[in-house]
Every structure is written in structure tokens, then in C-alpha cells.
């Protein structure tokens, strides 16, 4: 498989250096770690909001560093949790004394490392709170997760928590709005092709030329069903109905949607999916308050997409619509 990499062992390190070189006035790297923080961290008088996880999901998480979103983002090796000692350093670097919210995607390694880091910084007197995102409606208990996996809905958590923190809210309040997103969001993904990890250099799983995987995880974990290829509308309907079944929303509910590319999907196709998604929401009597389309949480070079729906009340609308200035997401 042809790839723009040097040595697989160096890919995360070199990527992070490249990100800093791209946004030198926005982010900086904590020395001897794979942690990026806002250039101006710690931001005084503000609760810190941090996240992290395995690499290979870019722009997640470091792309969301900046005003109105994240203060710190820890990168693990490809598809591997960051280690607790680096997470501990990240929290220490962004804490202005107001405490830090840890936004964790529900994978066993991530949860354990974040919780260990949280307890270690608490021993040093830093206040932390945690929210675990588990928005993937596809499967319970999969390869790396007990319960549901955390996927693209995490970006909405970053946005809402970051906006609340920017308002000067305290840690409890920031955690509350983050949890509110978690309680109201659902996602389901699908793959047209497997991702290829730098280490392995070949597809992580075999998918036939005419097959797709519904409910795929962002590390290529198995989904709910492998089926013959369908057209975009049929795939969109499968994903959307699964998410809406899970959320069970009342007619007239306002929602934010994300059509997220998995890394190897042309935007053209994502917009085709979004067209059908919005039509289906209308059929269900739901009202789209905002529709996001793009690559928000990828799985290396996987072709495919995920659909996220989040029910938003006035408070979440205000937070999701608040200004954000990050490399990957700008809201004015």
C-alpha cells in the first residue's frame, strides 16, 4: 500500500511536529510528549477542557484546540490510548486553578488511562471531572469497549463544553453540559473500505469489492452487519433509522446533524448523504437546527461515513453556536 510516511514508528511524532509548524501561533507541544495544548494555555480564570485518544482520527483531537473548544489534546500511537503520565502532564499544563474536564471516548484503554491520570492529578490538588462519550448506537461490547463506543458525537461534546468553559462557568457546569450532549447524541457509521494502519501497511479487515460494513467502528472494529453495496440513499436510511430508533425523539425536536467522512470519502459523497439525511429527518417531523458536513473524526484512509444526530435545546444551541476558533472548526 502506498503511503506518505517515513518510518511507521515516527508517524505520530512527525505529524505532531507538522501540526505545530502549521499552527505555531495556535498550538504548542509539551516537550518530550505527544501532547499539544493551546498556545496560550493555561487560560486564566477558565476551566480547562481536554481530550485525547489514539492517533489516526485527525482532525480529532488536536484540530479542535483553541478558543471555544479544547485546551489540550493528547495523541496516543495509532489507534492506541495515550499513556496516563502524558495525560497527567497535559492536565497540569492547562489547569489555571479552575479545574479541568476530561472528555474521554469510551474505549477501555482510554478510560483507564484518563481515570488513572485524573486520580494522579487529584493527589496533587488539581480538581478534575470526567465525561465518557458513548454515542455509537451500532453495537454493545466490542473489540476495545465495554458498552457503546465513543465516536463523532465527541466533537459536539468538545464544542459545548469548550463554549461553556469560555463563558467562565465552573467545572460542575462545564461537566453538566458535556454530559447533556452525551445523553442526547447518537451516531452510526459504515465502511466502504478498510483503513490501513501505518504499522501493518495492509487493510485491517477484508471487505469484498461489493460489500460494505454497517456499524463499523473508527478502528475498523466489526459493526452490526456486512451486506452487499447499496446506493447512497439506502445506506443513509439504514444509518439514520438506527440512530433515530435509539434516540427516540419527539416530533418537532430540533437537532444538529453531522455527516462525517471517515478519511477516504470525497466531500461530494458526504453532501449526497446529507441531502438524504435531511429529507429523512423531515419525514420524522424533526427540525434541523444546524447541519455539519466534513471530516471531523476519521479512521485513517477508510472510505465511508458516519451520521450523528444530537437533540438540542436552547442551551445546547447557544453553546454549539458560540464562537470557536480552532484549526479544524471555526464558528463566528
Amino acid at each position, binding site marked *: 500500500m502506498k503511503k506518505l510516511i517515513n518510518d511507521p514508528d515516527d508517524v505520530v511524532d512527525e505529524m505532531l511536529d507538522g501540526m505545530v509548524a502549521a499552527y505555531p501561533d495556535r498550538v504548542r507541544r509539551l516537550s518530550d510528549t505527544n501532547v499539544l495544548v493551546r498556545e496560550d494555555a493555561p487560560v486564566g480564570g477558565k476551566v480547562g477542557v481536554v481530550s485525547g485518544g489514539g492517533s489516526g482520527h485527525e482532525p480529532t483531537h488536536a484540530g479542535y484546540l483553541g478558543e471555544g473548544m479544547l485546551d489540550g489534546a493528547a495523541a496516543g500511537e495509532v489507534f492506541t490510548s495515550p499513556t496516563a503520565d502524558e495525560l497527567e502532564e497535559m492536565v497540569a499544563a492547562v489547569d489555571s486553578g479552575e479545574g479541568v474536564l476530561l472528555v474521554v471516548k469510551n474505549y477501555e484503554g482510554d478510560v483507564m*488511562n484518563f481515570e488513572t491520570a485524573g486520580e494522579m492529578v487529584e493527589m496533587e490538588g488539581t480538581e478534575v471531572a470526567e465525561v465518557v462519550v458513548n454515542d455509537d448506537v451500532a453495537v454493545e461490547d466490542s473489540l476495545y469497549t465495554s458498552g457503546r463506543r465513543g465516536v463523532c458525537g465527541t466533537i459536539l461534546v468538545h464544542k459545548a463544553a469548550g463554549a461553556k468553559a469560555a463563558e467562565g462557568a465552573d467545572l460542575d457546569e462545564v461537566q453538566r453540559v458535556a454530559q447533556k450532549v452525551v445523553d442526547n447524541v447518537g451516531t452510526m457509521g459504515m465502511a466502504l473500505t478498510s483503513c490501513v494502519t501505518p504499522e501493518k501497511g495492509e487493510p485491517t479487515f477484508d471487505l469484498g469489492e461489493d460489500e460494505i460494513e454497517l456499524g463499523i467502528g473508527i478502528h475498523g472494529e466489526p459493526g452490526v452487519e456486512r451486506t452487499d453495496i447499496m446506493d447512497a440513499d439506502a445506506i443513509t436510511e439504514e444509518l439514520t433509522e438506527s440512530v433515530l430508533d435509539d434516540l427516540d425523539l419527539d416530533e418537532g425536536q430540533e437537532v444538529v446533524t453531522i455527516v462525517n467522512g471517515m478519511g477516504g470519502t470525497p466531500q461530494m459523497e458526504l453532501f449526497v448523504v446529507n441531502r438524504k439525511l435531511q429529507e429523512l429527518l423531515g419525514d420524522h417531523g424533526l427540525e434541523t437546527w444546524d447541519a455539519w458536513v466534513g471530516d471531523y473524526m476519521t479512521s485513517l484512509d477508510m472510505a465511508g461515513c458516519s451520521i450523528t444526530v444530537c437533540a438540542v435545546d436552547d442551551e445546547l444551541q447557544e453553546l454549539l453556536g458560540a464562537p470557536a476558533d480552532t484549526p479544524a472548526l471555526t464558528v463566528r
Partner: protein
Amino acid sequence: MSDEGAAVVAAVQAIAERLEAERSYLTDLDSAIGDADHGGNMARGWSAAAEKVADLDDPDPATVVKTAGKTLLSEVGGASGPLYGGSLVFASQELDGGITADTAVAFAETYLEKVQDRGDARVGDKTMVDALVPAVHTFKKSVETDDLPPVEALAKAVAAAERGVDFTVPIRASKGRASYLGWRSVGHQDPGATSTLYIMEELLDAATEHVDVAETPAVDATSPTIPDGEEAAED
């Protein structure tokens, strides 16, 4: 270096050597029901820990244990880093006042509590907890109720851990990567329980040796000694 500190350093080194020796066996166990990296992770992590603690300047036991734990956290990563390393970091606080029968029991209990909290696992889930729970309870009872000398208590704890490892073979995994296999995990010995047993066996050896050394009158002043070997409860 304090005698106790030196004894714990020696124990960490013995554990590193043992896990290197068992590397491929642990990986074989993990291949059957996991992702085939446990042997490599443990060997690499403890070897780094042994190097780190060897560089400490006159450390007390708590510092040695904490340093080993932090090294495991950063070198092992994944779920094993927090389980093996994070638990050591937290439990090391119990040894702040040095190693006595009481602090060793407290250490063992805190370690177990952290592993269970972090992994949310109970006896019967086919994890390291199946070795740890009987070991820690046996150690505590042997020290507190039966008034056994700590090294004897530790020997009983190791025997209990061994039975715990055997117990993991016929049961179905319900935590950790192996749980993904469901019934197909039956018949395989849990790699985490197994490495936990190896760590405890090395602690027992180290403790026994240092007690013997301590009881020999003409002991070299630089030789690591430890009166009771309770630091063995380190795991």
C-alpha cells in the same frame, strides 16, 4: 541506599528478569484470547522499570514502587499500564512510613482496590483479579488473624494466587479483550492472572532471600536486606 529500598529495587529487577523469561509463554496465552501483546508489554515495561529504579539515589521503598509504577504507566500503556502501573503508584503511598506487616497489608489492599476500580472486574471474570483477590485476602488473614511471619504469609498468598490462576482456565471471560470471545475463552488460562502470579513469586523469592541475608550475622553492609519481606505484597 536504605536496606528496604535496595531490597525493593532487587525485587523489581528479579520481576523484570522473570517476565523476560516468560515473555513468549505469556504472549502465547494472550494470542489465544487477546491480542498477543501481553508478554512483550510486561517484559518491556518491567525492564524499563528495573532500569529506572536502579538509577534512583538512596530511595525509600515507596519511591521505588512509585517509580516502577510510573514507568509501567508510560511504557506499557493500553489497559495494562493503568492496571499494573497505576495501581502501584497509588498503593505506594501506603509504604510512605516504610515496610511493616501493617503497611504491607495496606499496600496489598490498596493495590487490589485500584485494580478492581479501574478494571471494574470481580472474581470469576477471568482476569488478574482472580489471582489477586485470593492472594490479598490470604495475605491479610495470615498476617492479622493467624499471626504468621510476613514471609510465610506471602508464601500462602502465592499459593492462593496459583489456585486463582488455575481457576481462570475453565471459566468464561466477561471483562477485558477476552470477553469479546465469549464462550470461546473457556479452556484458556488468563495471561493477566498468570503474569500477576509470576510477579508475586518473584516477590516471595526476593523477600525470602533478604530475610535469610538479614538473619546472617556477618552480612555485607551494602547487601540489600529486609527484615520481613512484606514489600512482597507489592503486587
